[in-house]
């Protein structure tokens, strides 16, 4: 009896192994590693990739890294063991993920980075980078504020609040330096900067404190939409400022922000076309894996756009 049972188990195992390899052999598998799917931004990227993948008939493995570098590296290691054909990566930090990418290089698995770049000069091979130009986005936000302030006062002056993202994160640094580089040219504009960690609750709380400490607030730039939406809640609740009179601009063109623009509360947001970025990155990876085609440009930057009430239809998302 025992022997028959054993035989049975072995048979099942053998069969499932065979079946498993067959199923895998049918299509390519691409691994996705994003910082965290709890941010709507990355959930959207993931969806865009999955749509493209099902179109091309490719398997996708996506794992949650909880915004922790060490976790992202172990996810990459797991993907190497699973023998994925390629990895689409959004690095959590510019430098810390490098050991993971090194391991991918060693295993000869091609990597495309999307949205965030690895630090320049690190000794790893990247097939391509498709990203947003966060620096230009920050610049465009600043130019929008400058233009609106000029409209309001005749010339660019006033007090501008900048809500900074998570300290140390690539997009936070790039968006802010683009923003600051423009603002520097206008000595009559005072910029007050404080971080709100890319979070809505922090955006609200920091804005509440600015409302208390700042006699005048003419414009607010949130380095992502979550922070500006929190700041808008604080402004709406305050008796000191009228949200309609304060110039407000976010970043990312999230659904909630677009809705707020349509409601006439938020003035603008920066659209970086994440869906297009992710899909383009995925396509480059797929072409390489399937046909060995190397992309013409190793870096593809997608030009960001300012979305206001007049061009809401240009945004990738709808509400």
């Amino acid at each position: 009896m025992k022997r028959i049972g054993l035989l049975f188990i072995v048979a099942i195992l053998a069969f499932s192994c065979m079946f498993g390899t067959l199923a895998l052999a049918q299509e390519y598998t691409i691994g996705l590693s994003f910082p965290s799917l709890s941010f709507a931004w990355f959930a959207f990227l993931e969806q865009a990739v999955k749509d493209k993948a099902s179109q091309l008939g490719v398997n996708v493995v996506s794992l949650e890294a909880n915004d922790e570098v060490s976790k992202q590296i172990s996810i990459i290691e797991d993907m190497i063991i699973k023998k994925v054909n390629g990895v689409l990566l959004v690095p959590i930090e510019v430098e810390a993920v490098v050991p993971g990418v090194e391991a991918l290089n060693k295993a000869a698995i091609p990597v495309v980075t999307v949205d965030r770049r690895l630090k320049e000069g690190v000794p790893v091979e990247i097939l391509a980078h498709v990203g947003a130009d966060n620096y230009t986005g920050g610049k465009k936000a600043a130019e929008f504020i400058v233009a609106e302030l000029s409209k309001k006062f005749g010339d660019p002056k006033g007090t501008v609040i900048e809500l900074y993202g998570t300290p140390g994160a690539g997009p936070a640094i790039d968006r802010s330096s683009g923003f600051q580089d423009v603002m520097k040219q206008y000595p009559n504009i005072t910029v007050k900067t404080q971080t709100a960690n890319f979070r809505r609750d922090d955006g609200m709380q920091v804005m509440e404190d600015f409302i208390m400490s700042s006699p005048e607030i003419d414009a607010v730039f949130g380095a992502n939409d979550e922070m500006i939406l929190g700041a808008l809640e604080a402004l709406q609740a305050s008796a000191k400022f009228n949200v309609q009179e304060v110039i407000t601009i976010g970043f990312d063109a999230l659904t909630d922000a677009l809705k707020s623009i349509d409601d006439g509360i938020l003035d603008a947001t920066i659209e970086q076309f994440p869906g297009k970025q992710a899909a383009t990155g995925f396509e480059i990876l797929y072409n390489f894996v399937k046909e060995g085609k190397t992309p013409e440009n190793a870096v593809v930057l997608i030009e960001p756009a300012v979305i206001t009430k007049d061009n809401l239809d240009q945004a990738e998302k709808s509400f």
Partner: protein
Amino acid sequence: MDALTEDKNQGLVERFFIFWDKIGILLVFIVVCVVFGILNPVFFNPLNIINVIRQVSIIGVMAVGMTLVILLGLIDLSVGSIVAFAGIIAAGFQVKWGGNFFLSLIIPLLVAAGIGYFNGYVSTKGGIHPFIVTLGSMSIFRGATLLIAQGKPISGMSPAFRFIGAGMIGPIPFPVILFLGCVIVFGIILKRTVFGRYIYAIGGNQEAALLSGIMVDRVKILTYTILGTLSGLSALILTSRLNSGELVAGQGYELDVIASVVIGGTSMMGGEGGVYGTLIGALLIGVISNGLNLLGVQPYWQMMVKGTIIILAVLMDRMKRRFRTV
């Protein structure tokens, strides 16, 4: 605590620690407030004071519940995840699933209470340290939040629901009333009811409490259920204030909550402390962050200052105990 004051022959050092025990943290709080007030007069603006208490109330409501758990000598790491999970359920009932006002209040509170019950039940009946159990539920319900929300925040609450977090009764924000209400109610429960006495008894000496016939497990489970419910209440306030059920809501809150309790003088070993200390502890954390924001100080400093105060507070607690046992 009371036994201490009855001692007849006290040394100077002991006297200092008794004094510290009574009003030490209050003194620190007052000094910090005065310093901020001098550096930036806006600090004492009544609007700012209300602003700070309102900012603190979300952490504060949870900290009241956490005080009870820590008084038992236990811990709960899952409160932040409960906030996210209950918050997303509240937002779901507001926006997606019919928009019934009462359901969007009651279901999240019941779910949060259920998670608290689960934490208490598994840790007592299963004999697992609550650190492990609540670490597990922290992860489970963060995941469950993502699952329900499918990676997107749920926004757009009804005006009635928005009252919980953003409403005012006269000049006082409604969350402040909820927070101070919780402090008073649980202050009374701890000092004036049998349940409160049991908590101190178990925290002070579990064996003795067990031998004297207290249903230790039952008290523990009930305490975790209370903390769960209060976390649910915090979730309602946060969701209502932000006008949105957020996926990252409550991330890292457990640290601020535990810090409020410990700074407020409740001993991590259990048996000593109370909710009034927690009130001061929560206010102190809120005031530090508000004051440094008003001054435009980068938050790196805020994190360092907060950390330093926590260590000092616990150090004081330890020294107090050492002098007692000598």
